[in-house]
């Protein structure tokens, strides 16, 4: 045994007894997360404060010059079309793009079968309609698209849900129409999907969770009414984490935190997600959908 080994052993032994406080780990971790949030908020507030101070010290002439400068920088390049596009993408949980008119009964639950070619055709039509200023040319390959339709959705509604792998945009193909589920860019798109019937008309609809945001990761809950072809985003937002749904009945759902391994982002199976903390409930009373949040301070 040499000196190095002796010193190593002594140091190791010295620290063996030290780390017995594992029970404080979670507490410490939560403290760290709170501190991080606080510091982020402080930084944000400091920036706002400094901007305010700077604005307050400006003369009228400087105000006018800056306003003019901002106008030139921002206002002019914004075309009316661009505004319209942003408005469209932010205003609804789902876009309704009729591709072909269908005369089928809305209550039919005969499973529909869309091949990749069918989806590509519908998607091309969708892009042409949604973004007429583009060429509408779609270069999708079969391996770029996943069919993530849960069995429950297939059996009870008969629609098919597709997800594009590179941007996680999610679409539902139903009665030869294509609708986009979820809003915004970034995030992982639709994460969890269940059937629901909040309006009680017997026609099952979709309730789903989706995430967005390339900077701050946000998860939200959307409801898509298939008979109306319209969607809405519920008043709930989970920052930093992904969420999934647990079904109690057609009108009652539980919302849980979940975790998607990064290697499964392109091919994850919504039905295999595992539930973690229970963070909210979704109930429908007298046709009004309500979200009750839990542990809001914690998460």
């Amino acid at each position, binding site marked *: 045994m040499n000196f190095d080994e002796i010193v190593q052993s*002594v140091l190791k032994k010295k620290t063996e007894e030290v780390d017995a406080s594992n029970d404080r780990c979670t507490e410490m971790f939560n403290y760290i997360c709170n501190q991080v949030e606080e510091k982020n908020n402080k930084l944000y507030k400091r920036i706002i404060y400094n901007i305010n101070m700077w604005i307050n010290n400006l003369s009228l002439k400087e105000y006018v010059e800056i306003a003019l400068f901002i106008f030139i920088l921002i206002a002019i390049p914004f075309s009316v079309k661009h505004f319209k596009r942003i408005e469209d993408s932010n205003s609804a949980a789902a876009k309704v793009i009729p591709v072909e008119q269908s005369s089928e009964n809305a209550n039919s639950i005969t499973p529909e079968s869309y091949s990749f070619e069918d989806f590509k055709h519908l998607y091309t039509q969708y892009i042409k309609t949604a973004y007429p200023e583009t060429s509408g040319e779609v270069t999708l390959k079969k391996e770029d698209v996943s069919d993530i339709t849960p069995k429950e959705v297939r059996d009870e509604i008969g629609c098919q849900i597709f997800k594009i792998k590179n941007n996680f945009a999610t679409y539902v193909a139903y009665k030869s129409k294509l609708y986009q589920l979820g809003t915004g860019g970034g995030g992982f798109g639709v994460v969890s999907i269940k059937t629901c019937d909040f309006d009680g008309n017997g026609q099952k609809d979709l309730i789903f969770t989706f995430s967005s945001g390339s900077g701050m990761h946000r998860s939200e809950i959307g409801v898509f009414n298939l008979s109306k072809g319209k969607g809405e985003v519920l008043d709930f937002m989970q920052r*930093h984490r992904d969420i999934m749904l647990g079904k109690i009945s057609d009108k009652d759902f539980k919302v849980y935190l979940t975790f998607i391994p990064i290697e499964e982002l392109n091919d994850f199976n919504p039905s295999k997600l595992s539930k973690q903390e229970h963070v909210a409930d979704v109930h429908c009373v007298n046709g009004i959908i309500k979200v009750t949040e839990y542990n809001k301070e914690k998460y």
Partner: protein
Amino acid sequence: MEDGELIARVKNNDRQAFKVLFDTYRPKVYKTAFLILKDYEYADEVVQETFIQVFLKIHKLTNPIAFEKWLYKIAVNLCFEIIRKNKKSKIVSLNEENSKELDNSTTDIFLPDNIVIQKEIQDKIMKCIDSLQVKHRTVLILFYFNNFSVKEISDIVNCSEGTVKSRLFYGKKLLKEDLLTNHNDIVNESMGGMFYEF
């Protein structure tokens, strides 16, 4: 999941990935801070502040392979800061209660070649390490306890490789001298004069 993937997720504000990183590195950082500062509470403080800074600044980390080195750089700097704030390490001492607790729980340790070093000599060696100047102690700890190379230590403590080598040499020399001068009897009894090997 590898550190690179975890770091990518933490950059995306994924708390769960951050928890995995925290659980993996917390004990090591805590032990290192404890060895440098000789105080449990300060070591806790260093762990907390280190991981706060990690979460806040991880977007600046361009090379995920360098994560561990970067993490220790933050931790060691925080240790130095605490020592500076506390009159250059004078107040930093293992408190009596903790010391006793450690002593009671200390038993003989088993070394690679199954030679048992007696508790007495362990204490003497540790006391010698503790009595070293912070800069020497830190380099010794990073080298012997964390198994960092001289190059890595030079990055962590922000000095040249030559300085690290010199501090390492000097720290070892002081340690040997102190042991042989003040505790020669114990060394000889316990180790059969093995220290003379170097």
